[in-house]
């Protein structure tokens, strides 16, 4: 170990609390970056491996019914590598212990061999077999887990009007249902929606579909154009009631995984970057101060023949030591948190296994970025120090020029005490340094705003979605769209207080080259249950003509109210309609489009039909209501609002809540680090001056109040600045959580601001207390001796 390195080690030890503060801030930024990037890597590589191994298809199509012979036509389409046809049918389930009916999507397994695409991963038990006495069925893991189903158990389903009981042969996963959510829902509801697989023969026979199929999955040969294949598939399937083929990008499960990765990508950049910038800034202030204090030592080293490079490297090593500690803590923290967080994704995503993978590249990049930040942080100070001719550096720095502070010249100073005047002059004397301290305090305030705005955003979504928008208790849907009479049947169910109809039609909305598939919802013009709400939030009245779409959908289609979009109906008679956009709705999950129900039915030329109804149920008759619903075969689905809200709380809200807690912890550490560091630097810069005051007869309290006064003034200036900065930062970062499936609104509450102010105030008070204690330790004699 060279002697300069030994000096380094001892200097570091003397500066350890500040060095640790900087290293911790850096570690927080790096931990977040490493955690999120590694989660992205874990999700992406697990997904890709799963898709590859289990042959996830690339193009999908649903239709009414086509004879198996059409399969050959599909296979003949140029660019198609593999074709998998089968049956996928939605049925009503009777789950033991579940009061309401549940919905199952049953998929067929081929008669011979295994699935060519979307192959299953067997988690438990075995795949169902044909020709057993009791029909066998395999169940998706999410639904099985929600109901604690195990192989050997039974489940009843209504197949084509006939209730049948099946034996569960096994629990499986499918690359097609990594995210198991009901159609047209961005949120999972594993209690009332499940996915199943059974042999083709039994399923087809039950629905009179033997020899036919209604679901297609295709894989493409390398280099094939997805668009061309989709167009060809649509042509082949057009006569068979096809609803339009789509690629992976429109596949609901795939898109949800993609969106989650996109959210993580947003989080992995902006927030850590702020932390790392703060760390670089802190390194700079610590090093500038250290170098200023060692001015004479630097001069001596240079006079004795050390080169600029040697001196520069010495101080760079100083900050490098901090970086190494920061990277070390950061990597460990990131890995620890990542390993814990990866489990959280089991709440949403069903992969055969989801292991935490450390993103080595990001570890390396993050280390280099931090080293670079530290280097930039220290470079300026070192350059100034080595540039100084040694002879000049040997002399103490010229005394600063003081002048009456601005407020004093304005004549209001008489009301200030002497120590407050000194504090003001100090601030004004070094405007750059005061400005930087102020900026640091503002940053400390700002980063505290971000995590809590996440929490408040989630709380707002919960209120908005399930109190303002949805005021029904239950949403009932029919097996097939039915006549208005169905509505009065709903109204006559026990406990139903009020019911409003809705009509769902699968459509493809198009504007220019952009297109999206979703369920167009027909609702009463000014319904009281499932309402259409704008950003205000104010209820939008659905007019007789025109369509209201989610603001997010409008921005994706790049259209504004007043402009027209094309709606292609994907059900029944295929039609294309041009409809004007008449309003933008606010929503935070998935995308939606709404029309007045009569207007929609007129456009569809089908007369008055409803898909279901939103109903309010008297809780006193809840059990009777559910029992009646279960006994009504025409009711396919029953979505209970409260259980959806619970699902959201347990999944999305919980995962965001977890991230929020981690971020908030980090932000608090950083805020303390910044403020403590500022106080330390301010104290060390002023040790001599304050000692002189003490010698001149000022009491410790009076001297302390100069220092504390300065910190208080700077904090008071920094707080509003920090709140504004934090609001902007929160807006920026939340905009990265703005995907087609999940969005968060920017909600800034007084409680959020108050918390940030409180943390900064407590950190400032503790730092001031610490500085005041240090002040007592200043050796008056030696502090003055060094003044020479």
């Amino acid at each position, binding site marked *: 170990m060279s002697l300069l390195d030994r000096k380094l080690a001892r200097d570091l030890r003397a500066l350890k609390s500040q060095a640790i503060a900087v290293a911790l801030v850096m570690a927080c930024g790096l931990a977040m970056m490493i955690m999120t990037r590694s989660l992205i890597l874990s999700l992406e590589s697990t997904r890709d491996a799963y898709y590859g191994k289990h042959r996830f298809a690339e193009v999908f199509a649903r239709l009414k019914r086509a004879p198996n012979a059409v399969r050959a036509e599909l296979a003949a389409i140029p660019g198609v590598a593999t074709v998998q046809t089968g049956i996928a049918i939605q049925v009503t389930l009777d789950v033991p212990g579940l009061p309401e009916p549940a919905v199952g999507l049953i998929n067929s397994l081929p008669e011979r061999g295994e699935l060519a695409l979307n192959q299953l991963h067997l988690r438990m038990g075995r795949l169902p077999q044909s020709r057993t006495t009791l029909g066998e069925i395999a169940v998706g893991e999410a639904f099985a887990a929600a109901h604690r189903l195990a192989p050997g158990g039974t489940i009843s389903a209504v197949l084509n009007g006939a209730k049948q009981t099946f034996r569960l042969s096994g629990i499986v996963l499918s690359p097609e249902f990594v995210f198991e959510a009901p159609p047209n829902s961005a949120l999972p509801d594993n209690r009332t929606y499940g996915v199943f697989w059974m042999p083709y023969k039994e399923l087809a026979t039950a629905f009179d579909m033997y020899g036919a199929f209604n679901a297609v999955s295709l894989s493409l040969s390398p280099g094939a154009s997805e668009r061309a294949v989709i167009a060809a598939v649509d042509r082949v399937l057009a006569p068979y009631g096809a609803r339009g083929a789509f690629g992976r990008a429109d596949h609901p499960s795939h898109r949800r995984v993609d969106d989650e990765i996109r959210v993580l990508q947003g989080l992995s950049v902006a927030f850590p970057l702020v932390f790392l910038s703060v760390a670089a800034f802190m390194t700079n202030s610590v090093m500038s101060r250290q170098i200023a204090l060692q001015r004479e030592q630097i001069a*001596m080293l240079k006079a004795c023949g*050390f*080169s600029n490079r040697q001196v520069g490297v010495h101080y760079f090593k100083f900050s490098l030591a901090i970086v190494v500690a920061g990277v070390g803590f950061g990597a460990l923290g990131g890995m620890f948190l990542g390993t814990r967080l990866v489990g959280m994704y089991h709440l949403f995503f069903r992969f055969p296994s989801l292991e935490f993978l450390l993103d080595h590249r990001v570890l390396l990049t993050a280390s280099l970025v931090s080293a670079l930040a530290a280097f930039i942080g220290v470079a300026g100070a070192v350059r100034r120090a080595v540039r100084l*001719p*040694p*002879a000049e550096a040997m002399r103490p720095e010229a005394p600063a020029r003081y002048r009456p502070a601005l407020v004093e010249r304005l004549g209001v100073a008489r009301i200030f005490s002497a120590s407050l005047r000194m504090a003001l002059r100090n601030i004004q004397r070094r405007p750059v340094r005061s400005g930087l301290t102020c900026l640091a305090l503002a940053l400390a305030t700002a980063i505290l705003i971000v995590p809590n705005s996440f929490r408040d955003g989630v709380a707002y979504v919960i209120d908005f979605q399930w109190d303002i928008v949805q005021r029904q208790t239950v949403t009932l849907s029919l097996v097939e769209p039915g006549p208005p009479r169905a509505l009065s049947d709903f109204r006559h169910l026990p406990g139903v207080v009020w019911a409003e109809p809705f009509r769902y039609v699968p459509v493809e909305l198009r504007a220019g080259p952009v297109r999206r598939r979703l369920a167009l919802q027909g609702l009463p013009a000014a319904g009281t249950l499932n309402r259409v709400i704008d950003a205000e939030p104010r209820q939008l009245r659905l007019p007789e003509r025109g369509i209201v779409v989610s603001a997010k959908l409008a921005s994706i289609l790049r259209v504004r109210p007043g402009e027209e979009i094309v709606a292609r109906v994907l059900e029944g008679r295929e039609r294309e309609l041009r409809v004007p956009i008449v309003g933008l709705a606010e929503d935070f999950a998935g995308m939606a489009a709404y029309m007045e129900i009569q207007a929609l039915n007129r456009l569809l030329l089908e007369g008055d039909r409803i898909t279901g109804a939103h109903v309010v149920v008297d809780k006193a008759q809840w059990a009777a209501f559910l029992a009646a619903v279960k006994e009504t075969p025409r009711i396919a689905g029953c979505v209970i609002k409260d259980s959806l809200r619970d699902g959201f709380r347990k999944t999305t809200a919980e995962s965001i809540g977890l991230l929020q807690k981690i971020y908030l912890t980090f932000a608090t550490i950083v805020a303390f680090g910044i403020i403590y560091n500022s106080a330390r630097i301010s104290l060390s810069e002023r040790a001599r001056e304050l000692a002189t005051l003490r010698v001149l007869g000022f009491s410790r309290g009076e001297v302390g109040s100069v220092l504390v006064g300065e910190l208080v003034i700077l904090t008071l200036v920094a707080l509003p600045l920090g709140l504004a900065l934090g609001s902007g930062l929160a807006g920026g970062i939340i905009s990265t959580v703005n995907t087609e499936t999940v969005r968060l609104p920017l909600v800034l509450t007084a409680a959020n601001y108050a918390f940030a102010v409180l943390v900064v105030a407590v950190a400032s008070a503790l730092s001031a207390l610490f500085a005041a204690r240090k002040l007592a330790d200043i050796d008056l004699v030696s502090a003055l001796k060094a003044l020479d």
Partner: protein
Amino acid sequence: MTPSDPALPSSRRRAGDEPLFFVRDLARIYGEGSATVTALAGLDLDLYAGELIVLLGASGSGKSTLLNQLGGLDSPSRGILRYRGADLASFGEEELTDFRRDAVGFVFQAYNLIPSLTARENVSLITEICADPMAPEDALALVDLADRMDHFPAQLSGGEQQRVAIARAIAKRPEVLLCDEPTGALDVHTGITVLEAIERINRELGTLAVIITHNAILADMADRVFTLSDGRIVNWRENDRRAPIRHLAW
């Protein structure tokens, strides 16, 4: 005896010796325009190996500026400054660094020790980077600090700290030892031990020693004495015999 031209060879110098430093019309001017300060106004000087030189003068007379020029800490604004025939004025940063590293030892009034290193480590710091150093222990023994080697600066008295600084300066076996007010911060007794250490190095190692001082009495310990005022040499003399330091009427 006050010869008019300080550049003239000293009588102590053996015929045919080249001077270590050859200085002509050396000027150092700081600042620009109305803020110009002339620290050195053009002086001539020859300094030889083995000499002990004392520079006298009031504050602001240019002593320290001259010392900084000789030590390669600063570059002249004008004039000739040669060391062993090499033009120091034309040296770049790197060459000046090498010059300081190999040829020059500095002793400062404020000692300038690294507080986080012990006496031995402060000396070793320098011996690590030069070509043919003496052992740090030997250097410290030369200044009578063999028994205080593992103390930190804060644990040493002012005189001891200054002697560590001298040990640090001479451990590299420099040809030139430049001392800026080495006793300025010390009491008489301590000052004497420090000056004796410098004189001993000069005598035993043949090092050219240049000492700046306010204290005119110290002039008697020198071979030659120069008095500076307003950036010029206004007076110089050559002592026939160097007075022993303990005999100086301090």
